């Protein structure tokens, strides 16, 4: 069994409910690095694996605040410090006029922040992944559901993992080469 350690052990399921049930079972068995692959965002899968989005809302908020304050500061600096122009005695710091641009930049940088944080968190772009070697994995973006137990998981044992996955009645179990 142990020629070179595989990247993980992959089980294939036909339905979303089976995947959620399997994910719940392996999580209960103590696996911390189980990975589930689905062709759409399956409801309940995140809870089954105790996954939560991290850092995206914060990055979005930071982007929004930086955009709003930065945009406002830019206009204030331009109109009050760098190039004050007296137009009919109006105050240089005419704040209501600075709102639209500050708002636009807040939205823009907030969106950029959320996007970058999302890509960063999920490791994209990363064009290669060992699971792409698994048989039938091209169906993971169509109609099949996969659950992978990674071999670098502290509780991973090849034989026990296979027994556990077998008990979940998958369509097939295969090793994922690293």
């Amino acid at each position: 069994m142990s020629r070179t350690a595989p990247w993980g052990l992959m089980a294939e399921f036909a339905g979303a409910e089976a995947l959620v049930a399997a994910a719940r079972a392996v999580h209960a068995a103590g696996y911390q690095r189980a990975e589930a692959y689905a062709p759409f965002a399956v409801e309940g899968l995140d809870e089954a694996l105790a996954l939560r989005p991290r850092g995206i809302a914060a990055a979005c908020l930071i982007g929004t605040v930086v955009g709003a304050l930065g945009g406002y500061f830019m206009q204030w600096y331009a109109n009050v410090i760098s190039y004050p122009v007296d137009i009919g005695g109006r105050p240089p710091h005419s704040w209501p006029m600075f709102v639209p641009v500050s708002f636009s930049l807040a939205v823009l940088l907030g969106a950029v922040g959320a996007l970058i944080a999302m890509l960063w968190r999920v490791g994209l772009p990363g064009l290669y992944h060992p699971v792409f070697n698994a048989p039938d994995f091209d169906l993971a973006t169509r109609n099949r559901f996969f659950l992978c137990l990674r071999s670098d998981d502290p509780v991973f044992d090849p034989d026990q993992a296979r027994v556990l996955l077998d008990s979940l009645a998958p369509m097939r179990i295969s090793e994922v080469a690293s």
Partner: protein
Amino acid sequence: MTTPVLRGHWGYAAITDKIADEVLTRRPGLLWRLSFWSTFAGMLVFAAATVHLLRTGVGIWGVNVPVAWGFAIANCVWWIGIGHAGTFISAVLLLLRQKWRTSINRFAEAMTLFAATMAAIFPLLHLGRAWKFYWLAPYPDTMGLWPQWRSPLVWDFFAIATYIIVSFMFWYVGLIPDLATLRDRATGRVKRLVFALGALGWCGEARQWVHYEKAYLLLAGLATPLVVSVHSVVSLDFAIGNTPGYHSTIFPPYFVAGALFSGFAMVLTIAIPLRRAFGLHDLITEVHLDHAAKVMLATSTLVAYGYLSEIFMAFYGGDRYDIAITTDRWVGAYAPVYWAMLGCNVLLPQLLWWRRCRRSAVLLLGLSLLINLGMWMERVLIVVSSLHRDFVPSAWGLFIPTAWDWLFLLGSICTFAWLFLAFIRVLPAISMAEMRELGHEQNAVGAAP
């Protein structure tokens, strides 16, 4: 449970193959080829006309003092308005958990991108010296100058640029899982490579989905105020000036309502031929037409309220110039445009009170074309009629569009249609990942899994 949004029973594989095959395997039909190449020719004419404009100047258009803003500005307002429906469908309806958005959000977003691009072109052409457009952006120039932050035209630049960039990001994030599907299903090496690069290595892992959904929701939340703010800022270009007919506080909400009105009309103008050409009647059903028609009816009513409010405020305010421009719209040089606009935007949409009309594809297509025309006439009327009679009778004048004015309008429509026709052949026009999810939910509620 309410009536299902989709018709029939669609499994994950069937729904994926149906949409993906339009891109990957299906040969384009004669109708598509004819439309593609004719709009391509129109795009080339538009490009050539642009070259002529840049070499000669905006004098080739009918614009002159006092009507210095003609079709170019009206077209810009019209196009950016059309673009609003895409973001409304994608973002606002997502936050409101409207399931029916799923079948139409992808191509509505593409429509938004292309319409906003058309909208961005016109003010640049109208600058006269289009190559100096970057003066609108703050950059460290050697003269030490800044943009005029108190000018709505600068706000416009920021609002529209933000809108295009955020709309693009939203559209692209939505595309990532679908590009992965295409990567896994494409057979040609080049196609696989291109889709693989676009998909960024997406493999549909649960951790990816969790973060993806969160980011998508946040982007929707950020795009939602843009639906309201962009056209409000556009309306301030007019409302901040003191020209009678421009200077009105009703303008921002009135413009936003008109934007959604024309935008949904354009969504139907696209959706009805699209579902027929691709046989998507199970995915874009009567329910979708019905809902979109209801939004059109509601926004038509809001627009009618805007018209009434303008008239009421003119007479209630008692300003003689406001009263003069109001009566001029009824009986003046552009009165036919005004009455035709009321017919298209207020009178005809009343048909939508009837359920049978809301579910008739042919009638809706005709109606949405007329509404697009009516909204275009409204934009022209706002821009032109207010300027042609302002304060001093000696400064009055007429705007008569030249052949070039019409050429630029038609050219932009051709370019828009050409971009869209190209889009539906190279990218999935309906979100496969979201349709799988919708099909999953609907099948779980219905029969056996």
